[in-house]
Every structure is written in structure tokens, then in C-alpha cells.
């Protein structure tokens, strides 16, 4: 009883019978088709969205430019063409040392952390179907912060041993992931409901924040200064060792996200519709949410809790690309641009050097408000 043996008068391309007369009538009545055209390259085919592709490319170019500018700026300024030729491996020896050994780690850390936060934010906002959802709210940031502050302020045998063996960043990463998973488990009730996820994330974050504050109030004043420095995200004093781990983790995770992204698209329409379209939504969502938590954890361990990027980058990317849902690639690139740009501003335009976490909020917030207001005025 499949489409094949149905009456022969109809055109049967897909199983639904449409009589030839119907189609030609309607097609005559209509003008140009408004369904997005497809592009085919060998076995690969995709929807041709020139605006999305163009904006994404522009964002990539802008992020690369900011990356190069960030490398060029410093006590020993290097012009942009020299920076680019050195990165491409055709520079002079002196430049190469300054660029590759001294400045590259900081700029690269900015890019990696920005991409990780942008993608992480895009995933959480899509899964929760709520623009407020971000790794900050899911407890990852404050979980990492609480662990870091605990290790800094409580100087005891165990704490010192932990810091010596895995490093402060590693321990913070574990704290962030643990908190993220705790939130996920607590929010689980025959599947994940976005609203419940946000509420539980908020509660767990508040507890972690309270623990952090309590530790800071009772701690020795010198430890507090160190802890505070960690709590405001910063890209200062990054070494290749710090960056390498974050870089590879982020690359691996973005590959996983890209592989699952295709199955992710129908989830924007809700669980039931996605299931009807043949998506194993619980598996897809669990994998992606785990990736989001890991990406946010990597970002926190590399730069500390840089606020606002994960919240703002997907929203900015959505409005720039005119997509109804956060675009993954563009969100990552926006995150990188925002973070590297903020770091650049923090080091050059301001009379005092501020940690990057302060500047991301100061730039990202107003820009998002501007985009929202512009949308209202239309």
C-alpha cells in the first residue's frame, strides 16, 4: 500500500499524489518560485543563502583582522602587513620571535575562547529556545569560579596538592563541568525542558556565587586579590602551554558540533516535530549540550569567566545574518571578534589596562541593545 500502486493519473514523486493539472495550474498562477535554491557540488548539496554566507565570511575576515591587529599592538608595534606575512611564515627573525612566541598565545587564546563561548551560547540558546540561556546561567561559570576561589583561598595540604598536580585552570575546568552536569541531571525529567534547565541553572549558579562570596569574605586579603584577578576574565600572561590545550579541545568539540549540527536543525521546531521528522532528539540534544558545557568549561579554564560573550555573540550573529535561530559558525566567529576586539580596546584605547571580561560586557551589551532597538523601530 505504498504510493507506487496508487492511481496512475497522479504525479507521484514523493508518495503524495498531486494531479498534474493541479500543479501546472498553480505554477502558472504563481510567478517566480521563492523556495531557496540549492547548490550542488558533486555529491554535496546545500541551500544557497548568499546573505548568511557573506556575513559569515565577513565575520571571519573581521576576526582575522582583529587577531592580526592584536598581535601588532604592544611596546614594540609591528605593522599589519608584517604581522600577516610572519603568520604565513615569511617574516623576519625578530618579528617571528615577538609574534609567534610572545604575542600569538594571547591573541590565539582570545580567538579560541571567543569561538568556544559563541558556539556554546548558540547551542544552549537553541536548546532552551530562550535567548537568556547561556553557559553563565547554566552554572558552568560560577561552578568553575567557586572551585578556583576555593583552591586559592583555602591553603591546605589537599588544596595545594590539587593545584600543583592539575593546575588552577584544570581544577576550575573540572568544577565548571561538574556543576554543568549537575544542572543537567537535576533538570532531567523525561527529557530536557528549556525553562526548567534555566531555572535550575540559575539556582545552582546562585548557590555557587554565594559560596564564592563567602570564601572571599572570610579569606586572607592577599588571596582575595589573586582570586579576584581570576574571577574577572583575562587574557594576560598566556603561554603556548595554556593555549595549546584549549585550542585542541575547542577544535575537537567544534568538529563534533559540526557533525551533529545537521540533525540539530529540526530541533528548533520543538521536540515532537523533530521526532516526527526522524531526529533522535534526546540523543542529539544530550550530545550537543555536553559539547556546550565542555566548550564553556574550556573557555573558563583558558581565560577565566569572561562574562557576556556567550550571551551576546549568538544574538548579535542572529541579527547580522538575519537568521531566525542562532547560527553556529557565525556565533563562534562573532564571539572571537568580540573577545579579541575587546582585548584590543582594553589594551589600546583606554588610559588604564582593563581585564578583557570588563570590556566584553561594556561593548557587547550596548551593541545588543542597539540591535534590539533598531529592530523595534522598523
Amino acid at each position, binding site marked *: *500500500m*505504498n504510493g507506487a500502486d*496508487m492511481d496512475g493519473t497522479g504525479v507521484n514523486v514523493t508518495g503524495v499524489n498531486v494531479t498534474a493539472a*493541479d500543479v501546472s495550474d498553480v505554477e502558472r498562477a504563481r510567478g517566480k518560485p521563492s*523556495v531557496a535554491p540549492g547548490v550542488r557540488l558533486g555529491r554535496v548539496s*546545500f541551500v544557497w543563502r548568499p546573505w548568511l554566507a557573506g556575513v559569515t565570511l565577513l565575520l571571519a575576515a573581521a576576526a582575522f583582522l582583529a587577531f592580526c591587529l592584536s598581535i601588532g599592538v604592544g611596546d614594540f608595534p609591528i605593522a599589519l602587513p608584517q604581522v600577516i606575512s610572519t603568520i604565513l611564515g615569511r617574516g623576519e627573525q625578530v618579528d617571528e620571535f615577538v609574534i609567534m612566541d610572545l604575542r600569538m598565545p594571547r591573541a590565539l587564546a582570545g580567538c579560541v575562547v571567543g569561538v568556544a563561548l559563541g558556539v556554546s551560547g548558540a547551542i544552549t540558546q537553541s536548546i532552551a529556545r530562550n535567548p537568556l540561556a547561556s553557559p553563565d546561567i547554566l552554572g558552568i561559570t560560577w561552578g568553575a569560579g567557586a572551585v578556583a576561589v576555593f583552591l586559592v583561598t583555602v591553603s591546605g595540604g589537599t588544596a595545594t596538592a590539587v593545584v600543583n598536580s592539575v593546575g588552577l585552570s584544570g581544577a576550575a575546568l573540572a568544577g565548571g563541568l561538574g556543576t554543568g552536569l549537575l544542572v543537567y541531571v537535576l533538570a532531567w525529567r523525561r527529557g530536557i525542558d528549556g525553562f526548567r534547565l534555566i531555572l535550575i541553572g540559575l539556582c545552582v549558579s546562585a548557590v555557587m556565587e554565594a559560596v564564592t562570596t563567602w570564601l572571599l569574605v572570610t579569606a586572607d586579603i592577599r588571596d582575595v586579590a589573586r582570586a579576584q584577578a581570576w574571577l574577572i576574565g583575562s587574557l594576560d600572561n598566556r603561554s603556548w602551554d595554556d593555549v595549546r590545550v584549549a585550542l585542541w579541545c575547542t577544535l575537537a568539540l567544534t568538529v563534533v558540533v559540526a557533525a551533529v549540527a545537521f540533525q540539530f*536543525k529540526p530541533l*528548533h521546531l*520543538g521536540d515532537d516535530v523533530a521526532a516526527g521528522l526522524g531526529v533522535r532528539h534526546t540523543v542529539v540534544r544530550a550530545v550537543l549540550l555536553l559539547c556546550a558545557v565542555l566548550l564553556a568549561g574550556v573557555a573558563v579554564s583558558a581565560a577565566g569567566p569572561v562574562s557576556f560573550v556567550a550571551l551576546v555573540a549568538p544574538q548579535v550573529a542572529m541579527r547580522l545574518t538575519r537568521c531566525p535561530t542562532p547560527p553556529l559558525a557565525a556565533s563562534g566567529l562573532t564571539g572571537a571578534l568580540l573577545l579579541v576586539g575587546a582585548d584590543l580596546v582594553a589594551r589600546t584605547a583606554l588610559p588604564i589596562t582593563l581585564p578583557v571580561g570588563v570590556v566584553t560586557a561594556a561593548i557587547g551589551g550596548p551593541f545588543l541593545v542597539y540591535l534590539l532597538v533598531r529592530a523595534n523601530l522598523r
Partner: protein
Amino acid sequence: MEHLTGSAAGGGDTARLAARGITVGYGGRIVIDGLDVSVPPRVITTIIGANGCGKSTLLRTLSRLLKPVRGSVVLDGDDIARLRTRDVAKKLGLLPQAPVAPEGLTVADLVARGRHPHQSWLRQWSSDDAAVVERALAMTGVSDLADRPVDALSGGQRQRVWISMTLAQGTDLLLLDEPTTYLDLAHAIDVLDLVDDLHESGCTVVLVLHDLNLATRYSDNLIVMKAGAILAQGHPRDVITADLLREAFGLRAEVIDDPVGDRPLIVPIGRAHVRPDRMDKDTVQVRLG
């Protein structure tokens, strides 16, 4: 039963979709217990019943959204739980209750998502897909709205668009859960006329509907449920009687000939504004003091 094809009542091998002894519940609470039903091919089957009788649960189980605790759902001879959900999606289209599209998503893009089961990571869009989507838009009469955001449409248009997405899936078996909810009568009729067009073009359709007269008018096969079990099944002319309505819904009603259709028409009797000679004895006594 002469209106039905042989398989309709019995649930033989010709049924596209059938439930065999399914028990379904939500976290320990059993809603349906040991139910058998089969969906006859190429007709419109509508599940009706009082609120909470398990009709949506049955539809969700038939569409593999809910996994039965016991028993199985059989699609074209295969246990639906053993099929890849993607392969099921190529045979069975589903429109859940009151779906919500992301703000700003255009009609064409939403309908295009219906092609998902036929796509893969590498093959995300082909000229076939575009042709099928255009046809789905045309069949549901929403081609002119293709560039509009879904959230800017009226309820009736929006429902047409969602049905269009289900059509783009390219299945000839469609399960629609309350497609007329929140629609005024004119738009409800409009949507059901569309469903009948699909049926005429060879689709097998299963609906859940609240409005009994619409269900009677548009279905060839009614499944009447009460407390998780099937009370009656068959053509509306055979099934819909005053006694059945009293038993299934606790509704007192008269069943008359539909002046414009060839089906019965249900005229509910409440307590207010009913002519005294048609009132229930108890009600008459109360009213007359």
C-alpha cells in the same frame, strides 16, 4: 459496515498502521491498557472521545512519540520500534498539537524542514527538495506567503503552513493531532477541506478532533474512545447514535440527518434554551418547579 473496506473493521494485513495490544502510560500512570486498533488505508480516520480519554496518547503512540510499555505499533508490517526513526519519517508524517516555529522563520524555510528525513549531512538540499517543497506550498495554498515569517500569519494560515511542512515530508500517511484547535469555524472547515483534498489524492489520514460534528462530516472511519479503550469504531453513519454520545461523553444529544451532508448531525441538548417538549424529564421538572 458496507462503507468500509474489508480491513477497516478487522485490522487485517492491509492496514497501514496498527496497534497490537498496546499499554501506554506516563511514568507509572497507565492511560491505555491493552488496546488493539488498525487504521484502514486511504481514508480519513478520526479519533474522538472526552477530554483525557487517551486519544492524543493513542495518536502519539501510533506515531512513535510515545513508547508503549507493552504491545507494539506496526507500520506496513514492521514493528515501528525496530525501524530507524528516520525511515519511519519517510513513511509517516506527523503534525503535533500546537507546534511553535521560531520567531522570524519564513514559511518557505519551515516547509523546507519537512525534507529533513530525505537529506543527509552532505546532501542537505537538492532540486528534488525544492520541487517537492513548492508542490507542498501550492497544495496547501500558501505559495503566496512563502517569504512571510510564520509568526506573522493568522491561525488558519499558520496551520496550513504546518500541514504543508508535513506534506513536504512526502509521506502518504499523515497523523494530525487536533489540526483545528484555536481556529474559528470557517478556518477549521478550510483546514479540513484541505485534509480531504489530501485524502482524495490518496493519503491515509488519522486525525484527533474535538468538534464532533466536524469529525462526523469529514471522517470515513471514527474511533470513539473512553477511558483508554475503544468504545466503537466504524463509519459515522453506523457509529454516531444518541446512546453512544451519552456513553462516551455523558452528552445528551439528538442525532438528526445533516441537512447539507450525507452524514448524521449531532444536536446537543443542554439545560438552557431547549424547547420544553425536547427537554429531559428531570430538567422539565426542575424548570416547572
